[in-house]
């Protein structure tokens, strides 16, 4: 696993992040970073769909929301104890797996935009369900809940989020580099050809959908726990768009890109709002936020990681032999 320079770099960064709370005691920085980790998990799960299987989903919030509500309802209805929390995690995994399986079966036969819109419809139905099932969800206002003790301390929770992100990253790295992961990339490139190589495409897509759904559910759990509050916003398009943006800004099909994307979006958001207090120009900081997206596309057309990889590659092989490494698919492994 730790065979090359890239992996050593990852290790250093992870190590740095792990000791950070003990040397730099800023709560809001911890919270911000926890937020980054949570969204990084969500974005990585999205990358499995977008970057590795080549499908755009507009309904990813569905799984995120299921995770968030499951843990919320469990903590509210029962006791905020570790055992119930673990039960909630288990139920989330089950629910997201089942839902992503069936939604996958129903939707994955559809072509690009139609698939995207159908997933959006399903996510929309979950949103309405959360709105209408008021006895459990308290409607769109949502509800607050308590969390088990081990999740209360911000530093501990920070470490848990970091740990989750690292584990998800390692698992997904393995997953995407496995023979199965390679077939997913083949599907992204040419679905029909994959089929005639003897791979049953739908099975693979459903597997991708389930893996991605379950991980999104876990991100949802962490998110709800971080707020100790859940409302219908977890099912909205905004969540899906966030995941989408983070994945794209970072570079699709790279996994690290998703993490970097989450960091960039959360931090530039943070800094821009801070600037808003400093100078009136930034009062409308959202404009600058939008400009960041636009500039990102112009200067990093393949996302930060994707474009950097290409650059690195160019330097290495400036030759007239038209040989190109798998910049798009192989990622950084």
């Amino acid at each position, binding site marked *: 696993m730790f065979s090359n320079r890239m992996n050593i770099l990852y290790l250093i960064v992870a190590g740095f992040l792990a000791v950070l709370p003990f040397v730099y005691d800023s709560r809001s920085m911890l919270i911000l970073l926890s937020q980054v980790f949570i969204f990084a998990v969500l974005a990585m799960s999205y990358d499995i769909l977008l970057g590795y299987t080549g499908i*755009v989903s507009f309904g990813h919030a569905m799984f995120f929301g299921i995770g968030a509500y499951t843990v919320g309802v469990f903590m509210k209805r029962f006791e905020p104890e570790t055992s119930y929390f673990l039960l909630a995690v288990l139920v989330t995994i089950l629910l997201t797996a089942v839902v992503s399986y069936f939604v996958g079966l129903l939707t994955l036969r559809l072509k690009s935009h139609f698939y995207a819109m159908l997933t959006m*419809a399903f996510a929309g139905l979950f949103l309405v369900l959360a709105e*209408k099932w008021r006895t459990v969800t308290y409607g769109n206002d949502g509800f607050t809940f308590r969390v088990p003790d081990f999740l209360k301390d911000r530093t501990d929770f920070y470490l848990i989020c970091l740990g989750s992100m690292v584990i998800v990253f390692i698992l997904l790295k393995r997953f995407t580099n496995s023979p199965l992961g390679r077939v997913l990339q083949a599907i992204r490139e040419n679905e029909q050809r994959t089929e005639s190589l003897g791979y049953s495409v739908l099975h693979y897509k459903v597997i991708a959908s389930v893996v991605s759904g379950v991980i999104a559910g876990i991100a949802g759990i962490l998110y709800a726990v971080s707020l100790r509050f859940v409302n219908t916003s977890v099912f909205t398009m905004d969540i899906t768009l966030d995941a989408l943006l983070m994945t*794209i800004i970072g570079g699709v099909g790279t996994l690290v890109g998703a993490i970097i994307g989450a960091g960039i979006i959360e931090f530039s958001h943070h800094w821009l709002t801070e600037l808003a207090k400093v100078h009136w120009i930034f009062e409308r900081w959202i404009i600058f936020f939008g400009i960041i997206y636009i500039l990102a596309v112009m200067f990093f057309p393949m996302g930060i990681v994707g474009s950097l990889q290409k650059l690195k590659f160019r330097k290495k092989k400036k030759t007239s032999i038209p040989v190109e490494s798998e910049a798009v698919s192989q990622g950084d492994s």
Partner: protein
Amino acid sequence: MDVLINLSLNGLATGMLIFLLAAGLTLIFGLMDVLNFAHGGLFAWGAYSGIWIYTSTGSFFIGIIGAILTGMILGIVTERWIIKPVYGNHVQQILITLGLMLVLSEMLKVVWGPNQISAVTPDYLSGSWEFGGIIIIKYRVFIIAVGFAVFLAVQYLLKKTKIGLVVRAGVMNKEMVQSLGVNIQRVFMFVFMIGAGMAALGGMLLGPYSGVIYADMGMEFAILAFIVVVIGGMGSFTGSVMAAILVGLSGSFMAYYVPDLALAANMLLMAVVLIFRPQGLFGTKG
């Protein structure tokens, strides 16, 4: 009976309004295959500029013209600077147009302030006629008429000129149309401009319909427009009209007969259509 007629009429009118909102997107997304998330921004700008011109000149008609022009200018600028570099790449389109969307809707607040703005119907279009139990709202009749006019005009443009063909060909293989002597960039810009103009028109007409315009109207209605384009079948203009009317009618009837599901009406409709007709109502298979 009266109820049925009322529901159908209002559903039809709402459908036509939705069609007006979606018509531009049918060109930009359906035909040119650009996932334009900034579409909502274009019609919010149409609404604001149109209503502003209307209230300052007092002429609804000039307001409409103003809105369309604003939309077209924005369309050209958008196409030139934002869309051109990302044709054919959905992933980049999503990111860059979402960025533009943020810029557009925040700029609205910079120019016109964060408050909602009321939009009134001109006198000659306000009020309603009543025949027995049937209420016919004048402004809705107007919307239906404009909807049909736009439909016919665009249909003419697509069927009687080569533009529709050239755009579709350009989307499939840009190099090849150019090799055939077509300045596809100019054609794309033109079609984008028309699409943006129609979006602006839709936004402008929405104002008096609901009586108010606000900066966030863009995203809200853009989703509706996307729904219409997709369930109509990508790029089919007839499909868009039908889908829009279907959305209007289903909203109207569900709100009356199954109010509990009214919130989910659009999503249910979309799910049902796509599960049973994965290519959309008027989409061609494959």
